């Protein structure tokens, strides 16, 4: 004869196991709790270093101070503001932060940027307006070329304008493997599956030097045919994320960018590429990237202003490369020759420098 507990246990066997989503959600919640921990320890250290808690502790007592910090760390909006304040207190040169505090806070910001980019990769379209200033012979810079670019998953599109503002090239992958390029100067276009021949354009070194070197190339209107197979990262989001993950960047301050007080991350002095990334304190997504030649070096100076768009039908349409009806189709090699020439020259100048500076 059964009893009531046995009956309950029998019914309990019908309760399903957790789904993959349930596991994923739980892991995300734990990671968020870890972030809060990091923030709390960072805030405590920052406040201690800046002598603020001494006054606060006098009023509240140590125990209530802990409660106050935990309360502050609880709200997402306050959390973001807290980090900004935190960064302001402990950035190098501010005179308040200890080296331990800087490490914690830089780690916190980098971690948040990394998480934001992970989430943005599949969920948002990166829209960029890239301005490229090439050095002129005899000093100064030539007139800037601008490239409007979109990157979303395996899809990518770049529209290049001349210094005088005329449309020059429109190119991109409407799917992960179909490449289209339109040359507005010759009124020609070409389309084919991912073409070969691009592999010799760029080095394929392992490790972080590759991703650091990849970022400028991705920003410069991409590569015809895309990066070689097996070369990661393949998207702007991944490139940014890899650059951040590789600890090539450090928090250096704050600056107003497009109306927001963005957190500034700059490449370390030993980095082969000089990059500065500004991230939104609310979303932790990059809003501006500037790439310069390293100190004393020559090369193009690029600025990319980034907007993150939801993948609506209208926004996804921006990833398509339209072909004007009157244009003539040509072989791909002929269509991309001018772009290849430009990229090859740039790659020779920039990635050669990466190689020489990262080689043992």
């Amino acid at each position, binding site marked *: 004869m059964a*009893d009531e507990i046995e009956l309950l246990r029998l019914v309990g066997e019908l*309760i399903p196991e957790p789904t993959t989503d*349930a596991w994923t959600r739980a892991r995300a919640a734990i990671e968020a709790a870890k972030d809060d921990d990091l923030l709390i320890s960072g805030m405590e250290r920052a406040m201690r270093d800046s002598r603020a808690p001494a006054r606060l502790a006098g009023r509240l007592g140590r125990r209530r101070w802990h409660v106050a910090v935990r309360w502050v760390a609880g709200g997402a909006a306050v959390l973001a503001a807290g980090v900004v304040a935190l960064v302001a207190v402990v950035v190098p040169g501010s005179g308040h932060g200890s080296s331990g505090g800087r490490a914690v806070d830089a780690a916190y910001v980098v971690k948040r940027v990394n998480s934001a980019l992970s989430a943005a990769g599949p969920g948002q379209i990166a829209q960029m307006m890239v301005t490229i200033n090439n050095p002129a012979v005899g000093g100064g810079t030539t007139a800037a070329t601008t490239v409007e670019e979109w990157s979303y998953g395996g899809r990518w599109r770049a529209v290049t304008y001349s210094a005088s503002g005329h449309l020059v090239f429109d190119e991109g992958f409407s799917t992960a493997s179909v490449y289209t390029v339109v040359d507005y100067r010759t009124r020609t276009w070409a389309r084919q599956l991912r073409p070969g021949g691009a592999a010799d354009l760029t080095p394929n070194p392992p490790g972080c030097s590759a991703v650091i070197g990849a970022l400028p190339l991705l920003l410069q209107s991409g590569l015809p045919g895309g990066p070689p197979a097996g070369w990661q990262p393949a998207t702007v989001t991944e490139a940014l994320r890899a650059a951040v993950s590789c600890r090539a960047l450090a928090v250096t301050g704050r600056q107003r960018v497009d109306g927001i007080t963005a957190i500034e991350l700059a490449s370390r002095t030993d980095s082969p590429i000089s990059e500065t990334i500004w991230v939104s304190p609310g979303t932790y997504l990059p809003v501006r990237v500037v790439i310069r030649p390293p100190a004393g070096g020559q090369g193009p100076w690029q600025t990319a202003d980034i907007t993150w768009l939801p993948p609506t039908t209208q926004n996804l349409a921006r990833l398509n490369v339209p072909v004007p009806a009157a244009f003539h189709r040509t072989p791909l090699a002929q269509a991309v020759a001018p772009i290849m020439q430009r990229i090859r020259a740039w790659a020779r100048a920039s990635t050669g420098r990466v190689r020489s500076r990262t080689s043992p």
Partner: protein
Amino acid sequence: MSPEAFEAAFRLHFAPVYRFISGRVGTAIAEDLAAETFAAAYRRRASFDPELGSLRSWLFGIAVNLVRNHWRAEQHLLHLDARLVPEVDLPDHAEAADRRVAAAWLVPRLAAALAQLTRDQREVLLLHAWAGLSPSEIAAVLEVAPGTAWSRLSRARAALRNSLGDFDFDLWVFSGPGQDPSRREPDHGR
């Protein structure tokens, strides 16, 4: 608790905690509550004291407190379950299939009976039956004396039997824990 120890605890206890919550408030809410259980556990990990109870009972204690905020959802689920025999996936193995069919038949009757219990009675019963906690572990979860947990469990069992009314336990024979039950004359739902 080190990060490695916490990760090991998560791997070991997440599924049982999730299932306990899911059985009480449904899968939709369970995902959030189970996630919050472990996030809260991480935040409070310094407060875990093995001398006060096992890690398992500490985690279920957090889960129980979260579920308490969703008693309306639990009550609603029980009322729904009391009306319907759930559809179940049947495994190929005949004995296992029989066991799931029998369990499905029992759901409305047991849900109706559980709905009549007090929250405390239901809590102690399900911690024992679904979470598999011993009375001493339940005492740790509820932060009461072991003797109190024993007596609460005993009273809850009596209350459930009472709620089941004329349910004929003699018709249900279990050959052993986790094995095939057989019914002589199932008459539930009539």
